[in-house]
């Protein structure tokens, strides 16, 4: 996967580059709009990560310009602005996504995967998910562990489905709030944790190998091996 990273803060650029490379991306980095333009036109990228506040031009203008030049790759917008303005929302509807700073690396990686998946033509939706001995039937909305049916509420099923779709990868609390409850909020109480504890109580019974792990300060992950 070839990724173009456009970020003017060298500090952020360097750690993003190394962690993205660690995650398996081939990363080309640019610190300003002009360089980014040249790189994007020359090379073929699968995905772009663009910071909105560039020294020579506005990130949105860069994206629009690249689109005009025929760059079709999806874009993940990084914004240090607090409120996401309408133009970013417009781009989001066009298939791109945004993330406000500061963000969890896990969230950045998850959003990149989502964007790539959305753009890949294999739209064959699975009706069953399997993580080790945990089976999810997405049509019947039923979860079984080692053949035993789990008594989940519909909300708990959605949460478990989201974790399983990202099996082996970390999901943050704000990602869970966004995807499961459809809200970008930051509660200063442990509301998400309690849901996870309850779900874990039902999924990881006594004597069974625990599947749902908590990574403190980061989020949660469901083990796939």
């Amino acid at each position, binding site marked *: 996967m070839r990724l173009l990273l456009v970020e003017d*803060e060298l*500090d*952020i650029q360097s*750690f*993003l580059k*190394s*962690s993205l490379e660690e995650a398996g991306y081939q990363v080309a980095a640019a610190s300003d709009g002009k360089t980014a333009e040249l790189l994007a036109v020359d090379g073929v990228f699968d995905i772009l990560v663009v910071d909105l*506040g560039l020294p020579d031009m506005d990130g949105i203008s860069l994206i629009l310009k690249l689109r005009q030049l025929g760059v079709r790759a999806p874009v993940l917008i990084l914004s*240090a*602005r*607090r*409120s*996401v*303005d*309408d133009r970013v*929302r417009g781009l989001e509807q066009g298939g791109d996504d945004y993330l*406000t*700073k*500061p*963000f*969890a*690396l*896990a969230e950045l990686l998850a959003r990149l995967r989502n964007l790539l998946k959305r753009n890949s033509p294999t739209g064959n939706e699975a009706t069953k998910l399997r993580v080790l001995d945990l089976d999810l039937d997405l049509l019947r909305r039923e979860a079984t562990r080692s053949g035993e049916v789990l008594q989940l509420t519909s*909300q708990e099923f959605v949460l478990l489905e989201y974790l399983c779709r990202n099996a082996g990868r970390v999901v943050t609390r704000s990602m869970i*709030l966004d995807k499961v*409850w*459809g*809200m*970008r*909020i*930051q*509660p*200063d*109480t*442990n*509301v998400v944790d*309690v*849901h996870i504890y*309850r779900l874990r109580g039902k999924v990881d019974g006594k004597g069974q190998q625990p599947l749902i792990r908590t990574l*403190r*300060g*980061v989020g949660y992950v469901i083990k796939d091996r």
Partner: protein
Amino acid sequence: MLVFVFLHRFVASDIQRRSDAWLAGEVEVLGDVAERTPKDALYDRVVGEVAELAGKEVPNRDPSESSSNDSVFFLQTSGDGALQLWVGAGNGEANLRAIRASRIVPDHPTDLDVRGFGVPFRVASIRIDDGSYIYLGLSERDELRVLRSLRLRFFLLWLLLVLFGFGIVFYTTRRMLSHVREITEAASRIGHSDLSARVPTTEQKDEVGNLARTLNRMLDRIENSMHQLHTITDSLAHDLRSPLTAIRGKLEMSLSTGSHGDQAEPIVSVIEELDRLTDFLNKSLDVAEAKADALRLTRIEVDLDELLRIMIDLYEPSMSEKGLRIRLQSGGPLRIEADAALIHRMIANLFDNELKHLPAACTVSLRLTVEDDCASLIVEDDGPGFDLEVFPHLFERRVKGRDSNGHGLGLAFVDAVARAHGGAVAASNRESGGARLAVTLPLFAISAGHGKASRKKTITSSLQS
């Protein structure tokens, strides 16, 4: 009006002066004639003829009047007061009686009321040498007629002027008020956050044009300072967020690479502190902008009923973990035009507040209704209620109860979001104990006018496990 009174007086006195002069002149002539004419059989005729001639030269006379002359009389009395000669309408008895009743001084014309005549006479007299008196009377009828027609004309002119003036005033006022109305409509459209619009201006140099231009200059300044505020908050946010991003990213990387168990714990707690700091930064800036009425809203349709149900679904496990119950009373879907992200965070703040401050075994009751084009959300609990010490400052920044561990922005944020949407928040302690927060939000943005839906049906739903 005053002008008319003066004019009327002037004309009246002028007419009187002229008729007095005429009377004085004629009576003198008649006296002369009477004196010189020998007292024979022809005397009566000669003097009568002269008197009648004089009567035809009456000033201000209406030419259309009939020839029968009742506007002038001539009367001669002998020294003992008996009627000697009479020229005029009737037999002169009434005139004589009236003359006798009033004292008429020679050479001074006097008003005289005579029975049988509607209008008084102006009478001049002269004494001639043979001891008889000559009286010449002129009816004031013509004089009054002239004055009446003057009054009538003046009244018509006045009426015309008043109507004309009224028309002009009506027209200009309507024109001016329509400008003012346009300005008012435009100003109300500008509303809370959209400061880019301007009121319509005209090229005219009148007061309304000035008002519009002044309003626009004021809006320019407000927009400018608002823009500066946004720039400051944006750059502040940017300047703090960039290092926060770098710090958080590096910490996360060291967490994943160096998996030394004893180092992980402090790193994790630092990341958590950073997240709290970020949250605090966001809320502070939001509250600051909202206090300055500068929150940028992107309004879409939000179903409050649905949102509350999702929130309850999200918070219910945490609440029951703490021994709290939550109930919702709502009449079904209730859509408002609002900024979804802000409303989500506002409701989350209300729930966080209850979750943090309520002791175990309490119940939170939510009631969602429609009142006067506003959605009303009442959040009540049966806990200890608001701390009386902080009560007057509940919606200010950095205010929190003694036992609170939050950063004291929660209710300030709720208030700020409600006000940015044109709504309000009211807090009180219930009589039966417990806190009560009433949030009202307009159903529609000010610019959009739609019909309102009536929601009579109330479904009570209990969402407790």
